[in-house]
């Protein structure tokens, strides 16, 4: 048991170092949101929180009603972000899991061709094809709409890829057993495959939710009404351009608030990780 205790100590050290390094910028964001602008701009930001937390957070939350700042209330932006993120995450998972199921569990002509077609979407980033994509969306009359915001982003290859990876590890015996039981492929999918994939789905949900949450360029292009702004657009709007002044402390406060839903999602998903673990013990 001595060896075990040593490993524990080492593990803690590694993790603490990891947390310190990797969480440091996030920590600084929180610190930055509690100071006033002058302190930050003069480079006097310390590692300890400052006294302006309440003032900054209230101002950021209400920024839509400020007299000089005509933004959209953070409340509104958060709702928009939430809708976008949830739609994209669930949409992506839904269609990807079906495609991956087809690619992994069936043999049909053009199987690998379809897989590659889906996969290659990762290699031409949206910034490059933004003008023609805008045209397509505009021609379909989808500007300023939720479908326009979400559907073009739903064709995810990442999710399909990871589901495929995972499905390839499912033991053949399970499929054989299902067949013997007379279960068709869809039955197999619902009753056996889905529960098995729970950790994967949970992880993907976190990633895709955040991906949808942090979307900037696409919603910016597709919407012309500020009521539809997402929280990330709001933050970038605050960071401003050349001649503008940057309210760093308000940006940090909004950024921290913007982080909370994804973090909440993560914490929720963590429980699923654990649950998934116990279920696969079967």
């Amino acid at each position, binding site marked *: 048991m001595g060896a075990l205790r040593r490993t524990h100590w080492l593990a803690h050290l590694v993790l603490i170092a990891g947390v310190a390094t990797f969480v440091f910028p996030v920590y600084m964001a929180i610190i930055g949101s509690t100071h006033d*602008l*002058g302190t930050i*701009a*003069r480079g006097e930001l310390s590692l300890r929180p400052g006294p302006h937390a309440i003032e900054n957070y209230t101002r950021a939350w209400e920024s839509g009603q400020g007299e*000089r*700042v*005509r*933004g959209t209330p953070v409340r509104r932006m958060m*709702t*928009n972000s939430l*809708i976008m993120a*949830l*739609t994209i995450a*669930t*949409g992506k*998972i*839904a269609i990807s899991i079906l495609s991956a199921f087809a690619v992994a569990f069936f043999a049909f002509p053009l199987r690998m061709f379809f897989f590659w077609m889906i996969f290659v979407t990762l290699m031409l980033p949206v910034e490059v094809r*933004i*003008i023609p994509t*805008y*045209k397509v969306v*505009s021609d379909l*009359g989808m*500007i*300023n*709409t*939720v*479908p326009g*915001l*979400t*559907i073009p982003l739903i064709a995810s290859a990442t999710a399909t890829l990871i589901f495929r990876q995972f499905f390839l590890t499912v033991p053949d015996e399970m499929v054989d057993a299902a067949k013997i039981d007379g279960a068709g492929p869809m039955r197999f999918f*619902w009753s056996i495959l*889905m*529960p098995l994939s*729970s950790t994967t789905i949970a992880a993907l949900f976190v990633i895709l939710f955040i991906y949808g949450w942090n979307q900037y*360029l696409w919603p*910016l*292009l597709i*919407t*012309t*009404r*500020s*009521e*539809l702004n997402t929280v990330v*657009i709001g933050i*970038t*709007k*605050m*960071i*401003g*351009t*050349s*001649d*503008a*002044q*940057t*309210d760093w402390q308000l940006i940090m406060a909004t950024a921290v608030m913007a982080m909370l839903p994804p973090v909440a999602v993560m914490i929720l998903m963590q429980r*699923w990780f654990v*649950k998934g673990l116990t*279920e696969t013990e079967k």
Partner: protein
Amino acid sequence: MNTKVLTAAAAILVIAAVFTPGQGAGQVPAASLMAQAPGQRVTIEFWHGLGQPGGGILEGFAADFNNAQSQYRVNASYKGSYPETMVAAIAAFRAGNAPHIVQMFEVGTATMMAAKGAIKPVHELMKEAGVPFDASIYLPAIRSYYSTADGKLISMPFNSSTTVMFWNKDAFRRAGLNPDQPPKTWNELRAAAQRIRAANAAPCGFTYAWPTWTQLENFSAIHDVPLATKTNGFEGFDTELTINSPLHVRHVQFMMDMLKEGSFKYGGRDAAGDALFPSGECAIIHGSSGLRGRIVREARFGWGTAFLPYYEDVKGAPKNSIIGGASFWVMTSPRRTKEEYRAVAEFFKFLGRPEVAAKWHIETGFLPITFPAIQQVQSMGYYEQNPGTDIPYKQLTRTLPSKNSKGLRLGNMPEIRVVVYEEWEKAFQGQQTAKQAMDAAVQRGNEILRRFQRTAVTQ
């Protein structure tokens, strides 16, 4: 965990979210905004690239316009930074639903102008809409920047800034310099910066933001030397850069010498250098007039505003400085109606009012762009109460613009600026001489201009 229920719920959620109309937006495609029902307001789309607080104030003006009458409605939206707004406008134009008005930064002027079929010149717009419009109320340096070579206004000026010098009075005092006397010439500036460093009155003597704008474009204007042939590109797209002239090379060498001796610190590209002054790090800075707001908020020392320095042995110097900022362009579309153009014209007339320009100037630090606005601000006693706020416009109107200080009209100017950044950065790191840097900049810059010329309409 019942995965069946879960998946069903997810599916329902997706379907519901995807096929329900968005909040407050409805399923209204932009195209149908063009077709107005009789009795309804004529709505126009206005895209801008101003973050807060400027963007908010601008959108406030749009709201004021909407409230002041019942025929027209301006829908203002923020489309990201200026390059992003540009791309958005291009994408929309190609899709057939360009916004009515788009804000474009000053260095995109040539690109917008070359897009002859896509834009409607302002002078034409006002005339066709029958809205009386007097372009002479605009400050000459501003008006000339956005006009054709023969003086016709193509885009509507709105947010213009110019470059000024700020100096740290407390640091000057600590170095034994007269705190109320900013350097007037480059030699004086260098001497001051050296004194400050020698006395360690501040960690850094001199820096600047927007390197190409302050040290090349404005530098050329102030010293009355051309940046490029054909009146800095106003007279044709077959222009060529002349920034490897002896004076230009001399100035780059001057900066390199100051860097080497430690009296100058390179602050980085674009606005990166801004941070170095309000923090007290550098005692002298050349930056945008708009930096003032930030200095007021953040600086904890006495400071002042001054004209940019010049080389006293150059004939004709100092002339007026040139502007930065952005202007409003009117875009065409196959579905535009005369009513919509009228709405744009009326909105522009509204924005040109002295109260609007005065409020914009006071609240954002951008220049007062019309003479009536300046008069109004003066009569409010604003300039007495806020010393230094009149320096920007004074420097801009110091002289009437000459051929070399009208501004510039070079295609792909953002790209050329980056070329200059790169060559200077190499020189500052000791990888090449000043002459090599400027020769390279001219060669690369001319390639860019030729590429632009090839795709543009020759005037």
